[in-house]
């Protein structure tokens, strides 16, 4: 049997219970998955000066800004609720939290419209152009 047979279901019932959580995109890889005291040691030390956010994280200066999800789009954090034990087994994910904007951080460099995340937010519009129905 083909491994491409398996599907992963999105449990829509979870959407109504999903809370909106603040979300930060950090310019480093953290070798950890799980709880952390983000608001105590990170969020509470963020400084907001003239729309530029700054924070010190592990002794490094981060500069960041908030970006909104494109109109008509919502941020979802999908979490595995059923982990397939093999390639052939179906999986399921639930919506564990949502977001409408995210804060991204650069290492030392001030945020600009050239930042990858900002440019990536243009993708949905392009996708609409490439995939929207054409007229006869």
């Amino acid at each position, binding site marked *: 049997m083909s491994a491409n047979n398996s599907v992963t279901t*999105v449990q829509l019932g979870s959407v109504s219970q999903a809370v909106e959580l603040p*979300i930060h995109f950090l310019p480093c890889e953290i070798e950890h998955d799980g709880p952390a005291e983000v608001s105590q040691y990170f969020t509470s030390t963020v400084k907001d000066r003239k729309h530029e956010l700054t924070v010190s994280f592990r002794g490094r200066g981060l500069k960041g800004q908030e970006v909104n999800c494109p109109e008509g789009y919502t941020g979802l954090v999908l979490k*595995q609720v059923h982990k397939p034990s093999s390639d052939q087994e179906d999986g399921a994910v639930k919506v564990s939290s949502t977001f409408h904007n995210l804060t991204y951080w650069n290492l030392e460099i001030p945020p600009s419209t050239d930042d990858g995340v900002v440019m990536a937010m243009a993708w949905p519009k392009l996708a609409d152009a490439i995939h929207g129905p054409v007229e006869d």
Partner: protein
Amino acid sequence: MSTKKKRSPPTENSSWVVIATDSIVDVPKTATGEPTFVKLRNPSTGSASLYLFGSGDSDLYEVKAFTEDYHSWFIGQTVQRDGRLLYITQMDPLYLLLPYLLKAGAEGKFQPVEQVVKDEDFPGCTRLLSCTRSLKSLHHVADEKEVGSLKFHRVSQEKTLDWLKKKVERTVSTLRKSNISVGGGVKSSTFIRVKQEEQASDEDYLRYAHGLVSEYISEDLRKDLLKHLQLPELSSPKQEPPAKKRKLSDLPVEAKDDYTKLNSSDFTRKPPKKMTAAQKSLAKVDKTGMKSLSAFFSPKVKQEKH
């Protein structure tokens, strides 16, 4: 390759940060079934990519990953190591149906699409025919014949190229309205974008849009479409269209069964990682489909390496 210290393998606790079109979660009460991620044959590479069927299979969506090296998330009071940002956006199912129609078209016969859209390796492909748009849009790429209540189709190269041309034109008009750099600005060696000051030419827009649409068609069609748009093939690397640049990220496609190579492809310099079965199930499906975003929008990724 990175000389960093060896990293610990990711844990089992996997989730995905996604920006999704609202129609996936705002489904009418009458809808049956829940959205499902499936693996289907990528029309450009021929290998597996990840897609999503909306409730009741009425719509198809594409899953693309924005990947920058060395990134992680804070989500509320948790850390998530996997720093990918996934986009789920609408997808025209006709792009995925076309390879099947073209394959059958070699026989030159009119056939029922149900007979044509079959794939041992990707059994989910038959669900494409349930998408509301699919049957309604077949006439864009195929001649139709009706016998009684039955419909038969035969792919038409001419119609297909006209349809793709319309796609390119739509894309050009969106590019013009956005401030995405398509021309001179992105070619500079520093990769610093020059926005409106430097006027991109009509050809710049056309080539860029052709590159974007080419992401969804075979190499042969890509070339034919270029001719149809009356654009000569470029050989000078200075004027590389996006399609060519993306070659870089398409390179590791043949390593498709090696899941550990997933994140080391593209421009990223990540050492191969061990992935959990859960991560593999979503991650392995994408070899090209989910990683091209950074190639389009983030010419600076190379700076990211340490």
